[in-house]
């Protein structure tokens, strides 16, 4: 049986500690085999046989770069220490090995797909690692905090155990907040036949509720016929996608799409989140059998850009301090919103500075892919494993970094604190509401 790697951080996670006690050789083997021989067989076959072990993907990975180029953190190194071993031993691996595989797949890879742009064969390491997570999930071996979010999804259809009355309360509260700017403002609930359904991620009402009132201001100023659902399906996030619980992922995505169908809206606009976008655009829809999302879906960045281009938002102020921009993988490498984001930034910033590398090639935040959702035990490891990002941000000399994705946002926040960067971290909407004109007639 294969040897274990030395521990670099001393971390205990109850989800893994308790999970490992319940493992039997049989359970491990059937979980592995289910994925190896059925769910993932075609691409595993092509990818694992094609990989020529050239190591060219290593430079792509922020985890590798930030850990002194230790090869065990390179994309191919992580696949070697998980899948290759499982294949070699035909699924007969020890519980300790599985625990290590869980640690690698859940906390050392953010599924950011940067490495697919550096491997000459375009091998999808993120997909392979997500298959390892799938095996771990089938074994019941998931970091505690991540599993908790998946449980919440399963029970409440949202990520944060938010109850329906709390949700409606929060919206009312944010409506009142926004009325300070625009007295006539409403957040229309369950308005059938509206043009747009606005959806957010579970943590927004819980921790970042002000973002909802900013969005309400944007919708009102732009004169959009919009609504938000009061019922399940309002949350567009999906951590089950990352824990490997694809069955729950499917249920959650279905609820989201169905909320829009029930409200008979023309399209869904979603707030500034990356993984949620991936789940509706790339992963969840596919699981449900939709080639693309069954109803038009627009990410916030694209939406702001459209509104400015159409003249529905008028920019009357510009941010003076130097601003830089973090390209979240799920909407850049995942949806190509690079130009829309820059269009908005050019409109509202006097001094916009690119990070380098930038656009599709930007380094990941090391928080996405469910990594930050593995919770406090993993925080130090997560932040130390993204030194490269801190260096990249510091080099811009910017005072403000815009991170239009919730996971990236929290990750970048931690990086700023840990590496003591003199920067403020904001969502794009926070700058946008400062810069738009609020027409006099609305203020009255």
């Amino acid at each position, binding site marked *: 049986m294969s040897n274990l790697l030395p521990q670099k951080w001393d971390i205990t996670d109850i989800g893994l500690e308790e999970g490992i006690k319940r493992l039997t050789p049989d359970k491990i083997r059937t979980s592995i085999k289910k994925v190896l021989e059925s769910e993932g067989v075609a691409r595993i076959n092509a990818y694992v046989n094609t990989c020529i*072990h050239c190591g060219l993907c290593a430079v792509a990975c922020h985890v590798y770069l930030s850990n002194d180029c230790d090869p065990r953190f390179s994309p191919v190194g992580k696949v070697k220490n998980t899948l290759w071993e499982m294949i070699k031993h035909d699924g007969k691996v020890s519980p300790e090995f599985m625990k290590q595989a869980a640690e690698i797949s859940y906390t050392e890879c953010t599924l950011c797909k940067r490495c697919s742009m550096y491997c000459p064969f375009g091998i999808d390491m993120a997909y392979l690692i997500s298959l390892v997570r799938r095996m771990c999930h089938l074994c019941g071996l998931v970091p505690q905090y991540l599993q908790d979010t998946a449980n919440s999804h399963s029970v409440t259809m949202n990520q944060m155990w938010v109850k329906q009355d709390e949700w409606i309360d929060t919206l009312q509260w944010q409506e009142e907040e926004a009325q300070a700017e625009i007295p006539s403002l409403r957040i229309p609930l369950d308005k059938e036949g509206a043009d747009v359904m606005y959806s957010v991620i579970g943590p927004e009402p819980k921790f970042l509720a002000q973002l909802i009132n900013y969005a309400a201001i944007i919708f009102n100023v732009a004169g959009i016929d919009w609504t938000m659902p009061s019922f399940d399906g309002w949350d567009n996030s999906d951590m089950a996608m990352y824990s490997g619980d694809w069955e729950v992922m499917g249920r959650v995505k279905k609820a989201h799409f169905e909320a829009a169908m029930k409200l008979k809206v023309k399209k869904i606009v979603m707030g500034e989140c990356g993984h949620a976008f991936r789940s509706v655009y790339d992963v969840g829809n596919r699981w449900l059998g939709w080639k693309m999302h069954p109803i038009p879906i627009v990410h916030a960045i694209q939406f702001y850009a459209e509104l400015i281009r159409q003249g529905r938002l008028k920019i009357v102020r510009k941010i003076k301090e130097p601003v830089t921009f973090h390209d979240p993988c799920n909407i850049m490498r995942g949806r190509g919103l690079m130009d829309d984001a820059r269009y908005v930034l050019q409109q509202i910033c006097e001094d916009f500075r690119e990070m380098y590398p930038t656009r599709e090639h930007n380094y990941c935040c090391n928080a996405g892919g469910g990594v930050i959702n593995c919770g406090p035990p993993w925080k130090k490891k997560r932040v130390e494993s993204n030194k490269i990002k801190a260096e990249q941000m510091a080099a811009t000399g910017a005072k403000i970094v815009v991170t239009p994705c919730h996971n990236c946002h929290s990750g970048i926040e931690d990086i700023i604190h840990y590496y003591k960067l003199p920067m403020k971290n904001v969502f794009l909407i926070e700058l946008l509401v400062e810069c738009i004109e609020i027409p006099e007639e609305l203020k009255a």
Partner: protein
Amino acid sequence: MYDFVRGPLLWVAFIVFIGGSILRLAYLAYLAKKKDYTVLTYANFRAGFRSILHWIVPFGATNMRLRPVFTIVSFLFHICLILTPIFLLAHNVVWYQSWRISWWTFPEWLSDVMTVIVILAGIYLLVRRMVCKEVRYVTSASDYVLLAIAVMPFLTGFLAYHQWLAYKAMLTLHILSGEIMLMAIPFTRLDHMLFFWLTRFYMGSEFGAVRHAKDW
């Protein structure tokens, strides 16, 4: 020995190479269709070929520009490795003697230079594999064997052509190693020659047509 290698085994080698390649590709197509239809659903010719193009043109991808020496060596290695045997005069003579078919040939000095390039590039790849941490970490014995399989026909061919060692034995060894290489292609990771086009095409399709981002 020479007659066996030059006769029946050559047939076997070509049949295994071509038949095996078809089988591998057919099996993958079958698996994809049965278990992973997604891959076929998102195939997009424009985006797929655009990505392939970027990755078969030297310096067409970011990662190639990050490491110019490796890029040049790797392209020289592959170009010489694939073209030399096809356009070698001696091979052409054999084709003509056996089948009465022939095509262009490189001048002998050029083939000689290209052979040396394959050998030198092979040495570079070998050293890189042993020295670079990230490559060594994922290297097993099979990687050295594959490199040897790829370089041996050139080494032996070079020695045979210059007749420095026992000519007949070297020629036999040369033909044998060429046959081993052909037969190894469909059944080892040398199958990347076949699968490169598919994996890159798929990733290109996903990036170009779904994700609207570049993958080079």
